[in-house]
């Protein structure tokens, strides 16, 4: 409890006076960072939480999407899925606002268009992937990437826990297939594809863990293989950020390596609280809280 309290106190201390939290070294509210911080705070840190929710609500675009940060151009992006997850988790009044899931359902990666599908299938084979299986981009007008696809899948699954229409089910299925298609040859995920110009890419721990959060509930071969990879990879990892994501994935998959991962996270983090950024502190708090059996914001209940 000590470390968790310290993390939550530190997150509370670093709140911006205008509400929300800044990313990295910045002083301007970042939507991604604010979402993680909201998920990490205790119930009794209500003022900070309410200001964070206010920040999210006032930065939401009329079409339901979110920008990357306060003051950004009026164009929605990948943070829409995270904001929807965060608001749902803290039971914000807008939890049942359907604009964000609707925006996500309409948001499509560039390879969903027949012309780019054709190009990637015929003329542009340097990056090997199946363009029929597309997910979500970081920003409109670009192709699918693993992390925005995983977060969008989680947000949509949480928004439509049951009685999904054909459109929702089809979109979810496509996104899941996209993740399976882009897995690295030995398991795990890089940012996008597993193979470029015939060479296998190295998986990233955080990307792999986030992708695993979206592949639960069914027996996915890609998920099993990637969990095996993650179990080996976290042992060598010195980054609290990646360890926290790993732990959250292990919680969701009820993986027996969770305890070992938490032990490494505690060791790495205990000396680094003051120098870690809000993203890392928040994710560590979420991991510790979830590992203790409390609510996990990325969990999908069907």
């Amino acid at each position: 409890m000590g470390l968790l309290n310290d993390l939550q106190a530190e997150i509370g201390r670093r709140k911006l006076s205008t509400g929300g939290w800044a990313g990295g070294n910045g002083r301007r509210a970042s939507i991604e960072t604010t979402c993680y911080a909201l998920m990490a705070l205790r119930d009794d840190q209500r003022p900070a939480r309410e200001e964070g929710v206010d920040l999210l609500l006032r930065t939401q675009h009329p079409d339901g999407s979110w920008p990357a940060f306060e003051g950004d151009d009026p164009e929605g992006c990948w943070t829409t899925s995270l904001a929807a997850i965060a608001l749902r988790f803290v039971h914000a009044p807008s939890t049942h606002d359907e604009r964000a899931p609707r925006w996500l359902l309409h948001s499509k990666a560039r390879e969903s268009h027949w012309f780019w599908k054709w190009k990637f299938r015929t003329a542009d084979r340097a990056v090997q992937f199946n363009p029929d299986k597309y997910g979500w981009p970081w920003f409109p007008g670009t192709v699918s990437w693993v992390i925005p696809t995983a977060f969008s899948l989680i947000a949509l699954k949480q928004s439509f826990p049951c009685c999904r229409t054909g459109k929702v089910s089809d979109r979810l299925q496509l996104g899941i297939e996209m993740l399976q298609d882009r897995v690295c040859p030995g398991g795990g995920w890089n940012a996008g594809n597993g193979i470029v110009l015939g060479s296998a890419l190295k998986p990233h721990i955080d990307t792999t863990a986030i992708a695993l959060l979206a592949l639960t509930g069914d027996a996915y071969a890609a998920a099993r293989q990637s969990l095996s990879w993650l179990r080996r990879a976290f042992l060598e990892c010195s980054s609290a950020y990646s360890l926290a994501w790993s732990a959250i994935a292990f919680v969701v998959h009820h993986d027996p390596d969770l305890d070992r991962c938490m032990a490494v996270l505690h060791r790495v983090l205990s000396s680094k609280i003051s120098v870690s950024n809000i993203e890392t502190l928040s994710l560590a708090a979420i991991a510790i809280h979830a590992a203790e059996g409390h609510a996990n914001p990325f969990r999908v209940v069907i």
Partner: protein
Amino acid sequence: MNRRDWLVASAAVTGCALALGLQQRKYSRDLRPKRSRVAILHTDQYSDKLDELVYDGLRLFDLDVRGKSVLLKPNIVEYIHGKPVNTDTHLVGAAAEAFLRLDAASVTVGEGPGHHRDTDLLLYETGLADQLSQRKIPFVDLNRDDLVKTKLKANYSGLGHLWFPQTVLASDFIVSMPKVKTHHWTGVTLSMKNMFGTVPGARYGWPKNVLHWAGIHESILDICATVRPHFVIADAIVAMEGDGPLNGTPRSLKKVLLADDPAAADANLARLMGLDPIHVAHIREAGLFLGNIAVERNLNLN
């Protein structure tokens, strides 16, 4: 006018518009100095001896950095054991030390890795975290800095503006420190391509796929016209050839190149690699307005 006349007239107008468009200059200012200064230093290995080598090399240029804030922008992409992917950390440390000895007010190292969201892990794996910690040099994650919307000073990509990190825009003296590599999309990745790392992932994703769709060569030109590096210190001690920028093979060139002009630096580096810089689209075009790529307009200082 009958229909045939209309068609002919329309075709003529379209043709003229296209011709004008092609001839239209895509840059507003000619940034080329009369002559560009270059120094190619010889060294066989990465070691503490680089401190003196870089310091002595910088003194050849008689740079006035007294009281200025210096930003070093190395190329930190991905850690792959045995592959010369990243700017060597000894060279980054040596450059930081040299600028401090030249009375710079501050030296900061900044990078925004393209695919890797866990910058802390990357810094640890590459050894840069240790190097900077020993020398007490601060690091800024350019992917998560405060951002300023900036009008581009050239118009190759059609993007019009980009958000750049405050740290980059506020620096008095920007030093691009590329790892000399071949690149499967752009032919080479040198000091100008290295400036992709100043474009923030928080606004453009991991990778910065918006730039790929706008054209990599085109984006390089627009970025360098807008945040033109004042100086280049290139790591060509062990370069990468073949399937770069990640999976190529090491090639020992045993050189560190210093230059006060990024286009001149890249033209010289391409020649060092046995390539004709005219065949690299962004270097060829940069020779029209960003710097001097012709040998006769370069002054070799050593």
